[in-house]
């Protein structure tokens, strides 16, 4: 049976850029075992297409300069533009998956506020709170309304 796929990405050596990775790791702790597949990586690369093709839905988790946490539904890019071996956007990766495997699952992008991108493996305090929020948003969606309270309490 297909499972949701969570892809957290960013540079774990550049401060808050690791928001997506840390949020993905947090979600894995919040959800019951084997509920979802969690992948963490520095960048979106072509090899992720096969995991995406096998998923029921995909959540991309990234750091950005947004305020708070923003969730956006994604569609495969109509014109993927220049495709690089080392980097894809979530939309171009979905389009790549569609071309390779004939279909791409529904997908969402969750972007959380980052505050500093300096060298270092620690997140800022504010970013740590954003990680909790990002994780709660995704975990609640995947766990369903009935478990929302439990998820929320463990996330705080």
């Amino acid at each position, binding site marked *: 049976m297909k499972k949701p796929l969570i892809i957290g990405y960013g540079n774990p050596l550049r401060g808050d850029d690791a928001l997506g990775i840390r949020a993905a790791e947090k979600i894995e702790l919040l959800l019951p075992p084997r509920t979802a597949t969690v992948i963490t990586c*520095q960048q979106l690369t*072509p*090899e992720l*297409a*096969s995991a995406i093709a096998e998923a029921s839905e995909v959540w991309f988790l990234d750091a950005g300069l947004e305020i708070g946490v923003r969730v956006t539904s994604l569609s495969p890019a109509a014109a*993927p533009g*220049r*495709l690089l*071996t*080392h980097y894809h956007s979530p939309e*171009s990766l979905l*389009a*790549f998956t569609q*071309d*390779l*495997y004939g279909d791409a699952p529904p997908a969402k992008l969750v972007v959380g506020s980052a505050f500093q991108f300096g060298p270092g493996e620690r997140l800022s305090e504010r970013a740590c709170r954003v990680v909790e929020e990002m994780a709660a948003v995704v975990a609640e969606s995947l766990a369903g309304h009935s478990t929302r309270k439990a998820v929320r309490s463990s996330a705080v």
Partner: protein
Amino acid sequence: MTKRTLVIDPVTRIEGHSKITIQLDEQGRVADARFHVTQFRGFEKICENRPFHEMPALMARICGICPVSHLITSAKACDAILAVAVPKTAVHLRRILNLAQILQSHALSLFHLSSPDLLLGMDSDPLRRNLFGLAQTHPEVARDGIRLRQVGQTIIEILGGKRIHPAWVVPGGVSAPLTAEKRDQIRDLLPEGLVALNRRLDQFKELFAQFPEEVDSFAHFPSLFLGLVDDHGDLEHYNGPARVIGSGGAVVKDGFAAGAYPEYIGEINEHDSYLKSAYYKPFGYPDGIYRVGPLARLNIARRCGTPRADRELEDLRALSKGPALASFHYHQARMVEMLFCLERIEQLLNEPAILDTHVRAQAAVNAEEGIAMAEAPRGLLLHHYKVDRDGLVRWANLIIATGHNNLAMNRGVLQTAQRFVDGERLTEGALNRVEAVIRAFDPCLSCSTHAYGQMPLEVELRDVSGGLLDVRRR
């Protein structure tokens, strides 16, 4: 017509940053062409004053494509500083890791980077001549390429804990033994890799045959070839002495160990590139031009030593009389080696002591110098460290596969440009071929630019409005 310079910047679908310049004479003919590496890493200097035991993990950070090669070669140099005999099981495990890396790297080079040229055409629309275009027109090929790369990456992850920059290889061995569960996970991956590769072998051999002009002009010339061989003269990626053969196949030098490299390998800084050029010292510069990497390894080896790879090696050898001199054949050599990697990993997993828990030899600093060689995907990799009695690195020299190939790549760029580039009728396809000859070598430039204190450098000091205040040149 006046003299002109064509610049291809950046060179695309390779690992790292570079450009190519082509000099045209008054008649619009190619007079010269050069490959310039424009990025600088400097790890030879970065590692100074660090404890030697940090070197494997630190050196792995040189590259995101072939970190395992640096990890292993660095650990081997540290083994020499410890002066220990690495347990046999640890050697087997290091070999598996190295082969998995070669597998994933070759799959990346052939399927992701070069297949768009081969399957969509050298003259095809550059907007579609990429991995995305390949997925749209040949999804089955892209899928198999991705799967082969995944097999290699997953083996690295199983053994080393992560796909990129694993730190499992340490001075004296590896940090943890292989479990039966992990052995079985790796074993289960291999058949799928073999199926994917077998699906593409015949297709690609037929495809390669459709490029006779490229075979003739993509760095097709006599040169030496350098690589490791085992005690029987067979294909070797981890240990063994180095062998040098000439373009006719005769052995020029057999059996030089890592410690003897200064006698045989010279390095020179070119004025227009951060990449050093290596040459075979007894023949001098530039006559000592040689090539390394999969084609060189298969040229110098007696055989692969695994059944399927040996059958494919026969097909590769049937293309040339004597050693393959056409660098276009690097592509086919990569397929032979991918097959070898899958077969050899299985053999190593079947070694009786592969689950032995004695996988690390412990010692303090017993030697003040460590030199090691291993085969990276792109060719021979050499790490050389000097340490003080406290084990702090005082000096380091890295000779990287791409540096070994630098003279050959430059000569290949010129040969290809002279064959295809017409200054009066420039075509995108002709310029793409000049890039494609570089892709055949699969250079990894982030791995290979560490020279310090010798490279040409120009620093301009400008004021806030951009006015030039001062210039310093070295």
